[in-house]
């Protein structure tokens, strides 16, 4: 049953630190999402499949932020959508708040959807231009028939707008009247309307101007502290992910190649791909950059339709050995919940 005892916005209840062992909100086990590739105009048949997510396992604890990073095609967004059951899961398990939702149909997902929400990258495309802000933010309340009626909903919307730093008189305006950062606040208010326990944020700041990104990142952090929210934060910007996440999973071609706490991952990245990603990010300081070894890996991410045999990263790995070309390295658990899939750390 959903624990709907807390009513936010309001004073925070028991935060993650108030519990001895934070409960697991989400557990994903060996998740696979394969898309069929069809060919032929008349005799349509499947000629292959894109293994967008190909055996991904992780868990998220209440009150924490798990960062999912990787380059295009790594499966980070697909993983997010699969957890929300917005696309078909090929195999594996998604357990949310103790309930296996992998095979839930639409009707059984309805109460779950209230507890799991999404914030999208594009603050322009994800808001209906014909709806007023109050309608956009209040729509989830209507759709899920939250009791109380118009007046109560209206009051709730006002509280939500206030919570994300928008002014009350903005409720009656349309999305086009807002800047990118303000629209993302509207998207966050909408995601918060049903008091979810898990919010999946898919590149939520990458479309925003640099000076606005920090405002939205801070808002995410404040809401988490006040309401004990759990986030999956999907992004390609490792500096932003490091800033906001407690733990981070690095993905490459449909797999998690390394998962570790923030401190461990950035202090001592183990997987050569994690190392390459970190080396590719310039640090905004010319003095630091001048003294940095610039080891840039070659090549681009191969097609997810034909991932390389063995370790998927071996075609670009500066440390690839013979075994890497044939044997797919399993995820190897290390101390402190850290894990890496690399033959160097087997």
């Amino acid at each position, binding site marked *: 049953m959903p624990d709907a005892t807390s009513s936010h916005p309001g004073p925070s209840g028991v935060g993650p630190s108030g519990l001895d062992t934070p409960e697991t909100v989400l557990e994903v086990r060996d998740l696979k999402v394969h898309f069929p590739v069809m060919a032929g105009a008349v005799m349509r048949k499947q000629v292959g499949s894109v293994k967008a997510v190909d055996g991904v396992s992780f868990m998220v604890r209440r009150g924490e932020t798990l960062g999912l990073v990787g*380059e295009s095609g790594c499966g980070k967004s697909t993983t997010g959508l699969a957890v929300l059951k917005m696309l078909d899961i090929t195999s594996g398990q998604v357990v949310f708040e103790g309930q296996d939702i992998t095979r839930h149909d639409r009707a059984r997902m309805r109460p779950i959807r209230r507890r799991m929400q999404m914030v999208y990258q594009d603050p322009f495309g994800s808001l209906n231009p014909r709806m007023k802000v109050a309608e956009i933010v209040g729509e989830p309340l209507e759709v899920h028939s939250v009791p109380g009626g118009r007046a109560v909903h209206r009051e709730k919307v006002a509280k939500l707008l206030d919570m994300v730093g928008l002014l009350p008189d903005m409720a009656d305006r349309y999305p086009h009247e807002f800047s990118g950062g303000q629209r993302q606040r509207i998207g966050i208010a909408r995601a918060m309307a049903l008091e979810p326990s898990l919010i999946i944020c898919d590149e939520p700041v990458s479309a925003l*101007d*640099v*000076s606005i990104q920090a405002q939205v990142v801070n808002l995410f952090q404040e809401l988490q502290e006040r309401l004990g929210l759990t986030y999956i934060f999907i992004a390609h910007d490792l500096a932003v992910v490091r*800033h906001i996440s407690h733990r981070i999973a690095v993905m490459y071609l449909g797999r998690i190649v390394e998962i570790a706490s*923030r401190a461990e991952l950035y202090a001592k990245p183990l997987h050569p791909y994690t190392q390459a990603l970190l080396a590719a990010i310039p640090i905004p300081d010319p003095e630091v950059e001048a003294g940095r070894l610039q080891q840039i890996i070659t090549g681009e991410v191969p097609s997810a339709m034909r991932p390389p045999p063995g370790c998927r990263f071996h075609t670009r790995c500066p440390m690839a050995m013979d075994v890497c070309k044939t044997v797919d390295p399993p995820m190897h658990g290390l101390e402190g919940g850290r894990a890496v899939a690399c033959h160097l750390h087997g």
Partner: protein
Amino acid sequence: MGAPLLSVRRLSTEFRTERGTVKAVDDVSFDLAAGETLAIVGESGSGKSITAMSILRLIPQPPGRITAGEVVFDGQDLLKLGDQAIRAIRGNRIAMIFQEPMSSLNPSLTVGLQIAEPINLHRKTPWAAAMDKAAELLGRVRLPDAKSRVKSYPHQFSGGMRQRAMIAMALACQPQLIIADEPTTALDVTVQAQILALLKEVTRAANSALILITHDLGVVARYADRVCVMYGGRIVEAGPAREIYARPRHPYTIGLMASIPRLDQEAGQRLVPIEGQPPNLAQLPPGCAFAPRCQRAADVCRRERPPLAQASPGHLSACHFHAQLHA
């Protein structure tokens, strides 16, 4: 020091919009020496791309119009040239690289042909020889299988390969200046690093000057010699990259640096955002465009537009209080 390769003086570019005339670029001046890399940094609407397009007179007209200024390139004011004369410079002595290689490449022509075209056009090199040169250029930008890739079409390339092809095309006539407008924004992190390193390497080898237009302060720190920071259509701070990062002298630059997370800083601290929104160019305040978001703003800032003045040798700031911002 001799005359700069490029000298932009008091450049202004306007656009006519439904909401009135907008000054997208307002009184912008800077110099660029041969072989130098200058970064123009700013957010959307800051005027950085319009500045670049104004240099090559690529502003769609109407609604745009260059209303004032000079763009002196190698002794010639490009704004006074006739259409034919400016076309002889574009893609020849000044080349441009855009953010979206897919929309700047012709999808129906082979990549080789598109690289060979400016060589044939500007250098009068026969087509066969120009195609050989195209293959050589693709090799120089380290495109795998360059020889056979000459016959490929743009859609057969990945994003990174297309941007390599764009760089090859830019290099075709050994330009003295390359203008790259957000050349890697659409690319993956590791490919972005490859392409920028390549761009820097080939421009250095050819002693070409480079104008790098970007919103990414990390990219600027890694690749630029000098920086112009733009805000609301104007340059608010300019100087050597090291100097600007070590001692920023404009509140906007200072604010930007405090608002971005860095990989080499302690994690978990709150970012310090710049409050408010980027300015609406149609409704710029009479004084400093940054004043509504500036914590240090005083009456004078809301009243008078601060001139771009010397804060220290070679370091310019358009802030009434630049002298007090010395950290």
